[in-house]
């Protein structure tokens, strides 16, 4: 039973869901905007208060619903607005990333990055980089729920 992916390869554009912590990475995204940097529109950001709010289930849900890549971004270690959130994230998502890879998802499809509120350039670069990598990998069929594609 393999999951069918409907997109025709030619017109296919990847969907990348980026979960950004409110204080650093989301602000880094704002900075990218304020500085009029540009990155692919394939990336769509969901704001969370802290990267430690990131339940692995949100990540899997994004894959189920058709995301081709998922990025979680938080403050650099030591800079967490809530002081220790990202230290916990580092452990949680390192373990989870390896588990997800273990079940066959390509490593590039799920990434974690530390992006500070001043790193607009890094934000834009990471988004472009992720998009390029996902484009190279092609559409993600793994863990995708084919039924969601029938819904508008």
């Amino acid at each position: 039973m393999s999951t069918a992916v409907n997109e025709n390869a030619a017109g296919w554009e990847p969907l990348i869901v980026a979960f950004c912590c409110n204080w650093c990475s989301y602000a880094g995204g704002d900075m990218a905007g304020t500085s009029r940097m540009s990155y692919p529109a394939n990336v769509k950001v969901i704001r969370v208060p802290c990267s430690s709010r990131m339940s692995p289930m949100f990540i899997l849900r994004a894959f189920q619903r058709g995301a081709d890549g998922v990025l979680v971004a938080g403050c650099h270690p030591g800079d967490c607005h809530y002081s220790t959130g990202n230290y916990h994230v580092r452990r949680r998502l390192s373990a989870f990333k390896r588990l997800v890879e273990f079940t066959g998802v390509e490593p590039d499809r799920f990434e974690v990055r530390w992006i500070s509120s001043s790193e607009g350039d890094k934000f834009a670069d990471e988004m472009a980089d992720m998009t390029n990598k996902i484009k190279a990998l092609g559409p993600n069929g793994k863990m995708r729920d084919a039924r969601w594609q029938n819904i508008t």
Partner: protein
Amino acid sequence: MKKIIAREKLPELWAHLSEQGPLFLPIQDGPVVLFQPWFEGAEINLDAVNSAVSPKDLFLPREETFMHYRCSGKQLEMTPVEPGEPVTAFGVHPCDLKAIELLDRVFLGQEPPDALYQQRRENTTVIALSCSAADPFCFCGDFGVDPADAPGADIMAHLSDDSMLFESRTEKGAALLEQAGDLLADAPEETFSREAVQTADFNLQLEGLAENLKDRFDDPAWDQLYKSCLGCGVCTYVCPTCYCFDVEDFGHEAEGERFRCWDSCMYGHFTEMAGGHNPRPERKERVRQRFLHKLQYYPEIHDEIACVGCGRCLRSCPVNLDIVQAIKALGGEKIEKR
């Protein structure tokens, strides 16, 4: 109609049958045998005593979408799912087929019949297979099942060391044998005689049990019986006569599909009501429900115990709590062997 095929030619027959539509048969999948659609290279295991999960899946799939819904503004649009193509089930053992008859009484025995079930039932040709072996958990003998014969089959099949025999029992079955054409040869009558398979004897006294149980709802035996139950639901999922399902939606408020899927009375959520009340809050009530349903409630309506002695719950329960133990604890053991 009686036909025979050499054992080594069976793959050709399967390939042929699967061209007509999905062909389900016992396939070795990792450490277990399951009824699955045939595919090139599948490892068919006809020697397995029983599949890990019963083939009730074919008529009551673990998941079955039955409608799509869509709202736009105040308009609600509902589209039922189209019926599927005809299916062949190959190698269903007599106990499992007996169980399907028990399910028929539930889904088809009253008006209106369950359309989804009915459609699958009508769409499926069942090739039953007599048992060439039993394991220590097979106790179908207690339930009037003949391991060598399955009355409800479209075709009855028997396996020997070098060949397989088919005997059509219905028109559907005959048609199927017919269109297999040259793959099958006519079978002489004498090849059908078989040795009886010896099943386990747990020394059960089933007669009058249902009647007897009417007064045992509050029997202290329940206080002990349920204790080891983990509430895992394995028994209900592997059981050929369990038929409970749940209905769930997939999608969002405005669009999606509605499907039904297996559920289990061993789960707390099974009976949880919208307001939060749960009439079967603990394992004790759930264990009692499952066994009384098999042994008392079902017989009260359908005059037969809802167990076929397939032994799956004996094999699969991680803590060895099974229907035999329950029957014995509830007075269903013969006092002395006559």
